[in-house]
């Protein structure tokens, strides 16, 4: 019995320490970043786009817009593809195909992002440059690469959501004379809706947080893009690119950028879990 208690205590300690380190990271980011926001003013920090940290200009609007656009672009590509893939695997494929392909797709999530970036630079960027114009390194390239990178997240969670819909519903619909597709569209998808929305939101979180692949293909220019072929610099790219040499206020400004990302991702995750819980 004493042993039992001992093991419980150890497990509790380990669990608390992982939560604790998460908490410490959060506190650290906020401690480092908040003074800069106070110094520059929240409004100025978020709503101007003049970024010259060594000269005292700390506006990150261009990067916020770039991050949002790259993410939206990734969703435009990734959501329909991912959903179509999930529906076809979960509803229209024999069990054998599903058990083979789902782990394979999940494997995609394990490929290091630098490899995606590399493929983007080698294949995608020249394609865009040659056929669509511009430098190739662009908002479009970033969106396409991210759209592919979020596929495993969207597909895998959507498949789980679709598979969780009881066969009772499918049988009921088929027995009323519905075709498979009618059943999927009118019963299964509505029943799996919250899970699918969660999949999309988590995919979004992954897209907005991705750094390496975006740095490699998006061009990293510091301005608000006016075309999908313009190079862009996202919030994450900016931190990664500048942190190595940043000091003083500049460094604080990068942490403040981190706070913005932190808040965005928190909001996305809370929304996802709120939707999941409501079902």
């Amino acid at each position, binding site marked *: 019995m004493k042993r039992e208690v001992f093991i419980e205590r150890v497990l509790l300690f380990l669990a608390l320490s992982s939560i604790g380190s998460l908490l410490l990271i959060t506190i650290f980011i906020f401690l480092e970043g908040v003074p800069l926001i106070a110094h520059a003013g929240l409004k100025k920090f978020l709503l101007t786009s003049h970024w010259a940290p060594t000269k005292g200009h700390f506006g990150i609007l261009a990067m916020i817009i770039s991050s949002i656009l790259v993410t939206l672009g990734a969703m435009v590509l990734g959501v329909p593809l991912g959903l179509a893939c999930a529906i076809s695997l979960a509803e229209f494929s024999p069990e054998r195909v599903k058990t083979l392909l789902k782990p394979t797709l999940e494997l995609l999530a394990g490929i290091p992002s630098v490899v995606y970036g590399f493929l983007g630079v080698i294949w995608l960027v020249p394609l865009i440059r040659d056929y669509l114009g511009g430098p190739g390194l662009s908002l479009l390239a970033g969106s396409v690469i991210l759209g592919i990178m979020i596929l495993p997240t969207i597909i895998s969670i959507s498949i789980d959501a679709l598979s969780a819909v*009881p066969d*009772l*519903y499918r*049988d*009921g*619909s*088929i*027995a*009323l*004379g*519905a*075709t498979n597709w*009618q059943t999927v569209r*009118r*019963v299964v998808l*509505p*029943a799996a809706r919250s899970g699918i929305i969660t999949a999309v939101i988590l995919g979004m979180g992954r897209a907005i947080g991705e750094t390496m692949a975006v740095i490699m293909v998006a061009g990293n220019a510091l301005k608000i893009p006016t075309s999908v072929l313009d190079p862009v610099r996202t919030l994450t790219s900016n931190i990664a690119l500048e942190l190595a040499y940043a000091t003083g206020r500049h460094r604080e400004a990068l942490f403040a950028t981190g706070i913005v990302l932190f808040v965005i991702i928190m909001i996305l995750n809370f929304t996802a879990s709120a939707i999941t819980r409501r079902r």
Partner: protein
Amino acid sequence: MTTSPAASDNGPAFACLEIIIRNLNLYYGDFHALIDVNAEFQARTITSLIGPSGCGKSTLLRTLNRMNDLINGVRITGEVIIAGENIYRPGANLTSLRKKVGMVFQRPNPFPLSIYENVVYGPKLHGRPSKQELNEILERCLDAVYMWEEVRHRLHEPALELTEEQQQRLCIARLLAVEPDILLMDEPCSALDPLATLRIEELMRELKKNYTIIIVTHNMQQAARVSDDTGFMLLGELIEFGPTAQIFTRPADKRTEDYITGKYG
């Protein structure tokens, strides 16, 4: 097969109602689940199928609207004739078959949609009815299962918030909305309490005036209470089929007698 001219010339309301099963065999892979079943289910009657678990009664029921087609590795030989046509003929239209032969499941399975959307599901599937028509269907079908007054003010609430009995009634209403001729019921009361069961049975007796009903049940008392004809199944064979009173009082087969007197099952 040849249909009698009377059956094929009659209006659809009369022609569709009875079911003739000839030499029906069904295999799940190597397992011979239905063995040479022959039966005629009469129009506007309630026929119950009884027998111990695994005897094939649900399987037999599901051959009548071809729900067994959904299971991998099923092979079926023989004929099931509904409305003068073998439903297993090549090229048979499953959608129109399932519209004609509706099914109520063991566990109430309303869709996770509103009460309204559940009832109009079938009509919307098979046509483009106007809002007015949908409202008429809604009232008629919910009225037929004695639910209209109970739910008329909460039609847009989720169907899953209803009680199990109401859910099962709703499933029957949803079925009536596609205007079937035959209702298949697979242990429709097994999830319900005794009072709810009685009320569903009452509903079945009411529905029998317009529909042919075939019910699979574990509950012999239920078969005795509601059905006109009874079939007793054992290990994939239809052992005995006849008027319910006869099956329960003077069974011809020893195995039937042993089952209804509770020697096994």
